[in-house]
């Protein structure tokens, strides 16, 4: 994939994750989980939003090398995200996959 396509793919997935974590179906399922999981989800959503804003603003020239180096992890992560978001009731699985994807994104742009 060309670097601009990788950037587009990454930002698109971040947008999908952010919005999925705001969907009533996800939040209702999350309400049934213990407090530590709810906290983990809230923190993750904050990180995803920051990553999304930063990825939207990022100059391609500045992140081109990282995107290329992480192509396999990004595309695999994006596929996993796509799959897991198909069922918003599977909150714990979503948290696990999103954590992994965000870990890869965090190697491209700096997160708090």
């Amino acid at each position, binding site marked *: 994939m060309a670097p601009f396509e990788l950037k587009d793919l990454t930002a698109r997935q971040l947008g999908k994750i952010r919005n999925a974590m705001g*969907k009533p179906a996800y939040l209702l399922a999350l309400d049934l989980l213990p407090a530590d999981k709810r906290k983990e989800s809230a923190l993750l959503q904050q990180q995803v939003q920051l990553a999304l804003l930063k990825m939207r603003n990022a100059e391609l020239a500045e992140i081109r090398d990282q995107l290329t180096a992480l192509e396999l992890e990004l595309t695999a992560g994006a596929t996993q995200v796509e799959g897991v978001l198909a069922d918003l009731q599977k909150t714990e699985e979503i948290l696990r996959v999103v954590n992994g994807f965000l870990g890869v994104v965090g190697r491209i742009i700096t997160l*708090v």
Partner: protein
Amino acid sequence: MMTEYIKHNKQMRRYLILLLLFSVTSCVSTRVNQFAGFAEAGRQYTRAMESLTTEAGGLAIDADSELLLKGRDQLSQEERGKMYIERSDALRELLVTLQGIRKHSRLLERYFTALGALAGSDPTAALSSELNSVVNSLAALHPALEKASMGNARVSDYMGAAVPLVLSGIKQQALEQELRRNAPVIERELELQTALLKALSQQMTEDLELLLDIKDYSGVTRPFVEAPSLGDTWKAKRKEVLTGYLSVDAVEKAASAAESLQRGFRDLVERRIGIGGFAPVFSDIHAMLDLVEMLRTPKTTP
């Protein structure tokens, strides 16, 4: 007999000359009207784009604020401070880009107004200077906007290849010279607007959807599931949220306005304007204005 024939022939020739003069004048005035019509489309588009970019900025801030507030309790004071500063910085960058888009569309409006004036009157030094000044300003602004990121991709990723323009039906020399010199440049600037609007609409769709989902969960779904009793406003809130999702579709319709304007410009220059004139351009601009209205309408339920 012969003299009568000559007299009749002379009369016929006079009629023919008059008819020719009339059709030339009518052709010229139709062309002048077309340029004036396009200038009006440019004016309305700019007004719509100004409002839409303002709303887009507002939506992005609202979406981020909702998320910040939602997660605030889960963050330590140190985390809150860092997160707030980083997120505000990112939003500021977006607002600068949106300001650039407004400046760019205002310049295009000035160009089309001057072009309309040039088509309808004799060229003046002031008109030429206005056209040159606008083209230079557009050239200065173009690179930064083309490089800008919005939505999920770089604006330039949405830009297509240049299509050669074939000037047609331009009688006035100054207008022809102007279009020969700058029409391809303006066509590229309109392509940039098309790309900007596409990128912007993608971002607006995401932000709008998130805001509606948050409202849905906190104001409608959660109370329905958890509250012991529902207030009088619950039904109204539900209707408001569900119908609010229509504005997400409206963003897609509004996104085609710049493309219509670009097509309209090509048709204007190449004299390919159909019977409907610029009606499709105005229709898409109105879709933009309808969307702005929809986003601005104060919500009835708290």
